[in-house]
């Protein structure tokens, strides 16, 4: 079957191999400033990664040349990107506006956006989860959570 992608270089494994190659080469530069014995293992691993990435790249390109179609990494890229962005946003929100506010918003928001649309269920779940976290960690274990850089705390 002919390769349906526009370029053979956009195959997931090829892109991954190129990524590994670039990152490992980038990390290899600072090893020259280390003592030889300190650089031994990291340099060996980075050179190993470069060689292995080249092998992965060649194997994948050989498959492409043979007409083997690469499987997509996900069937629903929008949902995956959306999920990841929401998780990152939650971490940033926790950092900047505080843990409890972010959590109280994130639990129902993520569940709602990804298909659970029962307002009462969402309210009950949010109250139970946030309440339990407060009772166990804040009240019971005196664990401090971020209060938000935005508020200057």
């Amino acid at each position: 079957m002919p390769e349906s992608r526009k370029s053979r270089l956009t195959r997931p494994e090829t892109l991954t191999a190129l990524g590994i190659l670039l990152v490992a080469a980038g990390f290899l530069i600072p090893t020259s400033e280390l003592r030889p014995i300190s650089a031994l293992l990291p340099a060996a691993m980075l050179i190993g990664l470069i060689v292995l990435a080249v092998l992965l790249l060649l194997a994948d390109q050989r498959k492409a040349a043979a007409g083997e179609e690469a499987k997509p990494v996900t069937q629903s890229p929008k949902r995956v990107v959306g999920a990841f962005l929401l998780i990152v946003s939650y971490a940033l929100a926790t950092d900047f506006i505080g843990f409890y506010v972010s959590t109280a918003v994130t639990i129902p928001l993520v569940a709602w956006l990804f298909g659970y649309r029962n307002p009462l269920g969402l309210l009950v779940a949010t109250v139970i989860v946030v309440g339990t976290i407060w009772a166990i960690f804040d009240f019971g274990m005196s664990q401090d959570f971020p209060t938000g850089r935005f508020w200057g705390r």
Partner: protein
Amino acid sequence: MYSDLLHALPDVFALTNFAAVIIGVIAGIVVGAMPGLSATMAISVLVPFTFGLEPLVALGLMAGIYNGAMYGGAIPAVLLRIPGTPAAVATTFDGYPMAQKGEGGFALQVAVVSSAFGGIASAFALMLLAPPLSKVTLLFGPSEVFWVAVFGLASIIFLLGGNPVKGLISACFGVFVSVIGSDPIYGNDRFTFGQLEMLDGINIVILLVGLYALPPVIDLLETPLKTGGVSSSKLGTESLWKALPRMKGFWKTWLRGSFLGIWIGILPGAGGSMAAFMSYNEARRTSKNPEEWGEGEPEGVAAAEVANNADTASALIPALTLGIPGTAVAAVMLGGLLVHGLQPGPMLFRDNPDIVFGFMWQFLFGAILLIILGGSLATNSFARLLNLPRPLLGSVIIVLMLIGVYSIHGRMFDVYLMLGFGAVGWVMDRLKFPLPPVVLGLILGGFAEENLRLALRIGRGDPMVLFQNTTSLILVALTVAVIIGPSLKKRFIDSRKAD
């Protein structure tokens, strides 16, 4: 040799330690029953919460979760034909047809009793085999320890199956992560890029949560599972004690499955699903009525479940004695031990006998508790878990991940680092890069480097010091065998097929 085992017993019965096992078993069944969640993920999320706990409380939770999740996977496998964990795939073959005939309750009871039998046998194997093995490994010097680390990495890369290039990339990545931070001997910074938070290196928990918890959460949100729901009143469950006489003919299957599960658990890289398939096939092959298998034969459920629980504790035999985990869950458990300052390996048995032997007892009691906690009443309750909405579950796990990682040092930097590892883990998972070599690389990398440098110092820089004694040479030979063994075996099979 076994006196430490008995000395450790009273501590296991301390209220908090025993309660931890009970909670762990219940949590494990819950997690195992949720398709998409696994014991590996649950323990990864749990590990950071155990920082402030006594080691036996933390380890009791882990042992309970591991045992519980292996059985919990049978619940959706029987009721929905969706294995809750990869190890429960073989349970669907006869479990689901049984549920279709209105015998779902009995199928789950066979699963719980078989799981408990396998778990008990596995715990005994751990108790019997680990102590003598640890005595042998106590004699190892730096060069032997270095080769043990290399052998462990090679085993998990090459025996795991799949693409060895990807396995090697995973291991190199793990070892590279292990060297980030201050050099242990000279103290100069390596790859910290001026970040003070990275001077102490990358905490294993951050990596574990990122690699093992984030990808399943993304999966939960990516593909919402739509089922018709499960009505527990349709299970046809009767009392476990009434059901037991119907299982008396399974003893041969239980013994055979336990042996297979224990053996596969000890082998690095193999795991519960392989054990379950092998046990199922063997039981079917020796059955008087193999034609009925696949159409609701209770012995099929017994064969699969006994084996996938029999590999739980046995996977810890190489993990506790040599630092080489037999399965992904065992690799994550090694991370859990490290969190409590317990370095897996021979010293663990010498320096912390109460903890390591207590952990073994906890595995045994976890398996016994399965029968009580997973019995008829509980089975109905756990079946209802399948009706929980996955997006809500996903959002709650995200919150737990953040709390767990933040609690390690009380800083958001670790959370961002975890998200980075999570993104890497998701890509690796989708492209079928094995994850256990990353964890093992991080655990063994620093250990291997330290011992390599120590050995080289002893040998005044001469690398031949690494090959100067019989044990080292045996370990080198084993490493070479592990590397070339699978390809030789493949060639042999191919040549026989060609003939």
